[in-house]
Each structure stands twice: as C-alpha cells, then as structure tokens.
C-alpha cells in the first residue's frame, strides 16, 4: 500500500455505510441467536440446575436423576439437537457479534453500557467453561449415560481440585448472569417490554431469577465438596428418595396373588 510509507498520515475514515434496506440474511441469524439463548439453551440450563439440585439428596438420588434423563426417548438426538448444536451456534455467533461491536465504556460508563460489556465477558466465560465441562463430564472418563451410578463420584473427583472448583464457581455465576440478563435483553429487543417502567420491573424479575438459579447451582456444588457426602463410592445404585419411602418399601414386600 502506497499510504503505508507515510506513517504520520492518519487513517481516513470512510465512515459507516448506510442501511442495506431489505438486503441480506443477518436479521435471521441474529434472531436465531437470540431465540436459541432462551429456548432451548436457557430452558436446558434451568433443567440442568434443577437436576444438579438432586445432588443435595445424595449420590443415589443424583444417580437416579442422571438415569432418568438418559432414559428419555431419543435422548442422544435430543442432546445434539436441543443442547450441543444450539450451544455451538449461540457461542460462535455470540463471539462474532462481540468482535464487531466497539465498546466505549471508558467514555460512557453508564449502567446499560456496563451490562453490554458484561454480557460479552460472561458469555465468553460461559462458552469456554461449557466446552471444557461437556468434554470432561460427557465425553471423557466414565461414560455416564451408560453408568449413571458413577455420576456423583465423577463430579466429586473433578471438583476435588481447588482450581477446578474455582472455575466451576466462577462459571456458575457467569452463566447465571448471562442467562438472566439475556432474558431481559430478549424481552426488550423482541418488543415484549417496550416501556421503560416495564423493563425496570422485569429487570428485578430477571435479577431475582438469576440469583435464585445461581444460589441453587452453588448449593449443588457444595453437595459435592461438602463433608456430608465426602468420599462417595465409585458407583452407587440409582435410587431416588421416592422409591425408598416406607410405603413403597412396604408395597414392595407384599406378595401379590
């Protein structure tokens, strides 16, 4: 380039191009990114944190939950279509959205602008963590879909490392933050909350929901690292609380006919 020789000359801004009215497909890809974040990814996040909460009842109940999920019809298809592929798309397209934005938080340190930046960093933390988490817990080591009884011990062994534990805690906060503000953004951008007061109120709803999910998630982590179930056996029989209630036990002992 001829201009490269004159280093003192500033870059001449050609300026932002005008709207390409009605042209291109980026509207579809942006809306798909936005929708997938709520359904199915957000829905799955809630399911996952609820399932994790079973860990507070102990290794057998946790194993039962893992067994139940893996007994769903077409579970491998569900897993790819509603979890892995949407996550990949949402993550990769999200990074693409991030690198095209030019943050100006230095000049305009306003609340919404901070949240704009935070949504990008929490998203990146979440994406990196989820990639690691899926690799280690789903695809490496003991195959949990085939051995649900080993699930509690596998997670406990991983969380035994303080660094990994720290990563899990940070990622839990980042994921819940990203989801809660993501739902708020979804409502704002899809025209569900067009009023300033509605957005403010819904902000409190999202905050409460996000904090609740995060507390549940952190409590589940505590179930694995706390003293109550320390040194859980390698594998347990998947038994839920429901199945060992006295009534069930009594019913089980009756010899019918």
């Amino acid at each position, binding site marked *: 380039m001829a201009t490269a020789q004159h280093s003192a000359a500033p870059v*001449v801004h050609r300026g932002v191009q005008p*709207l390409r*009215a009605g042209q291109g497909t*980026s*509207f579809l890809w942006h809306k798909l990114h936005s929708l997938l974040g709520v359904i199915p990814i957000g829905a799955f996040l809630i399911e996952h944190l609820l399932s994790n909460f079973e860990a507070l009842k102990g290794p057998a109940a946790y194993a039962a939950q893992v067994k139940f999920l893996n007994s769903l019809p077409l579970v491998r298809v569900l897993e790819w279509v509603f979890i892995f592929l949407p996550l990949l798309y949402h993550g990769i397209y999200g990074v693409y959205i991030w690198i095209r934005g030019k*943050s100006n938080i230095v000049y305009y340190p306003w609340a*919404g602008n901070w949240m704009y930046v935070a949504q990008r960093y929490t998203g990146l933390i979440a994406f990196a963590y989820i990639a690691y988490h899926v690799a280690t817990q789903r695809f490496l080591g003991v195959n949990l879909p085939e051995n649900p009884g080993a699930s509690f011990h596998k997670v406990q062994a991983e969380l035994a490392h303080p660094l990994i534990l720290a990563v899990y805690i940070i990622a839990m906060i980042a994921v819940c933050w990203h989801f809660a503000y993501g739902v708020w953004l979804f409502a704002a951008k899809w025209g569900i909350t067009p009023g300033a007061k509605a957005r403010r109120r819904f902000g409190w709803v999202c905050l409460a929901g996000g904090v609740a999910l995060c507390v549940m998630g952190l409590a589940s982590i505590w179930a694995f690292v706390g003293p109550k179930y320390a040194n859980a056996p390698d594998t347990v029989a998947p038994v839920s609380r429901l199945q060992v209630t006295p009534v069930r036990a009594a019913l089980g002992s009756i010899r019918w006919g």
Partner: protein
Amino acid sequence: MASRTVQLEIKRQASPDAPAVWEKFELEWRPGMNVISAMMEIAANPVTAEGRETTPISYDSNCLEEICGSCAMRINGKARMACSALIDNLEQPIRIEPLSKFPLVRDLQVDRSVLFKNLMAVKAWVPVDGTYDLGSGPRVFPQQQEVSYPLSNCISCTCCMEVCPQFNEETGFVGAATIAQVKLFNNHPTGKVLKEERLRALAGDGGIQECGFAQNCVEVCPKQIPLTNAISDVGRDVLVQKVKDFLRG
C-alpha cells in the same frame, strides 16, 4: 475577577488526510459562555494560548438553541451539542474533538450524511406528493399525538449513533435515530401506507437486529427521545412483518 480565563484544547485537522494536532486557547471568561460562543471568539482573534497565530476553527452550527442538530461534537470525551454546553458547567481545560464515527471534513466538521441516507432507506416521510389535491389528512387523535410528538423532536444530531457501540464500520448499523423515525411515520395515519416497506428495510443488513441494547443512545439524546422504547416497539413490528412475509410467501 478580571483575570478569570477559560482554557480550551481543540483537536484540529486541516483536511481528511492531514495529521491531527491539538491547539490550546485561553479566553477571557464572560458570563453565559458556551462552547460555540467561545469558538466564535477564537474566530474573531485566532491566536493560540502560546500566542501563535492560527486559523479560525471549522465547525457546523446554526441555531445556537439545541434545535438544529448541527453542532454535535465530543466535549470532554462525551458527544453533545456544543451550543448547550455551558462553559461554567465544564471541567477545564475543555477538550473538544470532532465526532469519531463519521468521515472528517475539517477540524470539528464531520460528514453525517449517513443518517440522511438511512432516513431515505426507510422512507422516513409521509407520502403526499401527487398531481392533484389530496385534501386534508385523517385526524390524529391526541393520544397518538402524545406518543408521536417526542419522536418528532429528533434534530438529526447523530449523538445516539456516535455513542452506540454497535454503530461502526463493521456492522453498518442504522442507529437509533432512524429506528425512532420509523416508529413516528408508521404511526402517522397517512405515513403508515409505507409501514411494511419501512419494516422490511429495517430487517436488512445493518438493521435493527444489530442493536445491542447498551442504551447509550437514550442516555445521550439531547432531546430526551424515548429511543429504547422505540427500538423495542419497532423490533417487535419488524419481527412480526418478517414472520408474516415468510408465512405468506
């Protein structure tokens, strides 16, 4: 207080491809000064604080009452109208720079024609031109006037675009001002004849989907236009239009 002075640092550039330089100016303080009146004084006596002769500063301005939208520039780092930037309310030295997102013409003058191209792209007008008298238009009810009037206050200053993290050369985002004008003209009883075309236009590349809802636009708008409300409303309308088009296609 005869010795009270005002310090200004102004970023200057003789042409789009000339190097940028900062010049310092020191003026005698007078009551009620604003950034434009300070630059008028510099034009009357273009001498820098070091006593070196220079040229008058080039900038756009017209009404001097925050209604024409011409004099948007960055003052102490923030985009705002220079005419309503009172010297007494600013930290000194006052640093003045041109808007950063638009092609520079000279000094503080930038080419903001992209906004007008965007307004044309979404047909931000009421189509009444014809070969015969169309008569009086339909009545606009007061309830609708309440919604439309704030939107009609837009002065095309481009501050909302300057402060938007998504308005840049990568995205080619249309910006909040144009989206708010789509809401204004779509709600007009005669203007709404072009509603579907406007919504389809806004679904194009660089359209409403590029909004990241950082909400800087509504913070900075000198006319307090409810820009984020407009983006939310128009966002829904664009989506509904695209779904309709898909199902009817």
